[in-house]
């Protein structure tokens, strides 16, 4: 474990100033602290965001949708009966994420910005490509949890359960830095590591995520989240599916299908969603869309199963929206 300094400011401006100076954001610490202890992350300065007022909790403004502060503990979203009525997909996605203890401490921002779970990445002793090395060890190694689609040099998968669910709700994020604020689509926060970009997220130096916003329109859609796991608790998704749609007279509109666990980013293909517009979400339409989503998938040695599994979960998720 490396040595670091630690600061816990009360004001957002102070935190942003420190981040601008090269410090690393610390929220619940459930991911970052493990990375530091295992020597994978070596931050010199940590800025604890949990003392800042105003980044915690969620609210709804009529007509403007929902705003969720980035420092809101996952458990607060999961256990809110009110939110479960407005956005049931969020509770569904969190119920099987991590463990109750971790959801009590882990935050929304931290969940979206958690690092990937590739076991070579998490092993201090393996100098893989994402950590600045020359090759990806998963390509010819143990690859059962790795990507089947959308990967370039690095085959890790986006691990978050919350991200696909929120993307299926057209979520945006508010990004803050000492230079000001900007908004972006949540989907654009995630990038597949490639070329010179050996990272998973698109935040710029000195930025933090202040809030997530879900537009009013998304609240009118029905949504669901399915997750395949190797055990019944504390297990990242082998494959997960977030799906949402507006159902009018038995026909689907505004369909969103986002896969977790299959690609370096939450995986979405516009053509697949378009293909489902106006259908009754019958088996054939669902499986055809699943094929479009997974078109071009090139599984590694150990993970061909993910393709079969994803196809079936997409079918089930979409079918359940119709039902």
């Amino acid at each position, binding site marked *: *474990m490396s*040595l670091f300094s630690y600061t816990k400011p009360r004001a957002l401006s102070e935190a942003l100033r420190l981040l601008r100076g090269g410090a690393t954001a610390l929220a619940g610490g459930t991911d970052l602290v493990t990375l530091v202890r*295992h020597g994978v992350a070596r931050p010199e300065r940590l800025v604890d965001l949990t003392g800042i007022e105003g980044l915690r909790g969620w609210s709804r403004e009529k007509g403007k949708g929902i705003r969720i502060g980035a420092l809101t503990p996952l458990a607060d979203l999961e256990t809110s009966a009110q939110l479960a009525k407005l956005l049931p997909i969020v509770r569904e996605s969190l119920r099987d994420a991590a463990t109750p203890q971790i959801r009590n401490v882990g935050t929304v921002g931290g969940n979206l910005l958690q690092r990937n*779970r590739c*076991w*070579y990445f*998490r*092993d201090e*002793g*393996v100098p893989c490509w994402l950590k600045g090395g020359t090759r990806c*060890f998963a390509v010819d*190694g*143990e690859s*059962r949890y790795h990507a089947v689609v959308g990967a370039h040099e690095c085959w890790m998968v986006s691990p978050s359960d919350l991200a696909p669910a929120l993307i299926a709700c057209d979520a945006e994020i508010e990004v803050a830095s000492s230079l000001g604020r900007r908004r972006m689509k949540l989907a654009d926060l995630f990038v597949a590591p490639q070329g010179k970009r050996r990272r998973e997220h698109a935040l710029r130096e000195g930025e933090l995520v202040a809030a997530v916003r879900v537009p009013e329109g998304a609240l009118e859609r029905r949504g669901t989240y399915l997750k*395949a796991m*190797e*055990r*019944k*608790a*504390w*297990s*990242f998704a082998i494959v997960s599916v977030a799906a949402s749609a507006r159902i009018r007279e038995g026909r689907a509109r505004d369909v969103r299908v986002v896969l977790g666990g299959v690609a370096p980013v939450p995986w979405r293909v516009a053509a697949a969603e378009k293909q489902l517009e106006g259908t009754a979400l019958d088996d054939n339409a669902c499986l055809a869309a699943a094929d479009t989503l997974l078109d071009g998938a090139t599984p590694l040695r150990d993970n061909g*199963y993910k393709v*079969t*599994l994803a196809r*079936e*979960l997409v079918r089930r998720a979409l079918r359940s929206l119709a039902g």
Partner: protein
Amino acid sequence: MTDVLRTPERRVEGREKVTGTARYAADAAREGMLHAAFAGSPYPHARVLAVDTAAARAVPGVRAVLTGADVRPARFGRRLLDWPVLAWDRVRFIGDRVAAVAADTPEAAERAAALVDVTYEELPAVFDMDAALAPGAPLIHPDAADYRMLGVTRPPVPHPNAQGHQVHEHGDPAAGFAAAARVFEHELALPPVHHAYLEPRAALVWIDGATVHVVTTNKAPFSLRAQLAAVAGVAEDAIVVHTPHVGGDFGGKGLSLDEWPLYFLARVTGRPVRSVLRYADELQISNTRHGARIRLRTGVDRDGRITAHEARVRFDGGAYAAGKPIPFLMPGEAMATLAGYRVPAARVEATCAYTNHLPAGHDRAPGQPQNSFAAESHLDLIARELGVDPLELRERNAIRAGDVDVHGDEWHASEMPRVLAELRRASGWGRPLPPGHGRGVALGARHVGRGKTSLELTLDERGDVVVRSGVTDQGGGALTMIGRVVARELAIAPERVRVEQVDTARSPVDPGVGGSRVTMVHGNAALDGARKLAAARDAGAAPPIRVVGSADQTAHMFGSYAYAVEVELDRETGAFRVVDATLVADVGTVINPVAVRGQLEGGFAFGLGQALMEELAIVGGRVVTASFGEYKIPSIADVPPLRLVLLTDAPGPGPFGAKSVGELANPAVVGAVANAVADAGARVLTLPISAEKVLAALRGGAA
């Protein structure tokens, strides 16, 4: 007074544990204590050409840096001393230690260990057990002839890469196969798995004048004392080993890892030195359950009765045999390929290979889950081929009094037929299942423990008793059991017996916990002591009365058990759930009712983990499942309720007729689950039974 054994026990250490005041080895500390860290090999097999410690020594706070050259020729082990304390000429697995650092803080020690600069020359590595035993395979221990073996001479091995080898034959297998109506052959495989005890290894060593003190997680302190005496070249009575509470063992804590370099560090620094293993290292370098590949061939007559059996068992022993305590250097039940069945003729051959994987050692019923998975799958496949109900086939072949088992031993008594009859009833065998469900059965048998020990008992003026024993309690409830045996014999309340676990300087020699031994051996010694106290008291001796209770348990006897398990299978994804389970176990007289239930339910969960998800995945010698995020064990949500039926009326050789339960019931779970999944449509021949393999089997592929 009501019978002590009829009231649920109160754990003597329970209060300390639930209030957090219990002290473990990692809590031990001494004035001036240093912290240790180690540098391990990044290669699975390499020559060590040079070790440069200059940079490590320059780290502020570092007090000593030792390398192989400083400890040479010290090698350690429970039986065969084949594991160098620090490698001096060759490393044999990833993590094999080449240097040890003692420093003022753990951080300084770790930083320094990372700066030890080793020049290696890579050697060809061998990971597959059959490849290791092939002619011309790279030799992993060219100097094996020089290794010392504690207590016995090493049995001969057929290949320099063999750790151990055994062949057994009885009856006339050739005639048995010739007489068979059908002969079946199957091969099954299991990966190495880890015990997953909660507490990682920890140790503190200091030298006080001529005495070496060790605080350890080792569950067999006297064995550690003997091994340390051999490794360090000091007299046994110049070593005091103390094992405080052990936070789970399951067989793994019989091997010490850090104590050896700590001894050398304590000697050169003159200071106490402590280390606590990181869990990543537990998974990366400590002794696992052996991975295995098992080929079984069995002949049956027209009714499915076994006429002859042949087995070829291969174990992956990893880089060192040091973790194995038995002279054959094999997992204890390496040869038990058809445990609990009548086998009139058999030839069983088992070999444990050296490979460049992390070393394998003992894990709860060593060798049995491997053989049980193979045998119970094999018999189920035979039943299906013959069109006989799987439970029926087992009933026909279950061992009865007067029959000979797979080892050629005759059983003088057998509860197996009764266990199966009870299982049939309690599980509702034959009741129609909903679609997508499957039901499986597997049986098992395990010998009760043997061995000898003594302990001291003192009866005071008030009629209270103090027992002093060198036994450790790794969570099994040994101390509570001893107290209840004494209380029952003297007809006093258990609260009036205080059981003290003492270090090796204050106790008669004790064999430690293991081999399903404690209730049989320590329980009988407690009973013997209690009887002596009663006799002295009745003869009018004046308190305090002090006696030594002893036992030498040599009876060879078995506990029998069987599972029925029901699963629900999702045919589109291959995912399945165990929805129902029944265990019938022949346990003899119950001394600790809560612990017996805990051992059986825990054994079920333990086996379930091995069936469903546990696997130390190793790539090129490196364990990639090096945390509990990756190395999955079941959560409580994965474990269905267990219907438990105890047969208590067939007495065993333990106190009041007790038998062993600690390692009784974990082995057969894997077979029962595999058979239930097969009944639902997917036969999987390797563990763990993942959804992926199930789906492949459903779709007709290989699994």
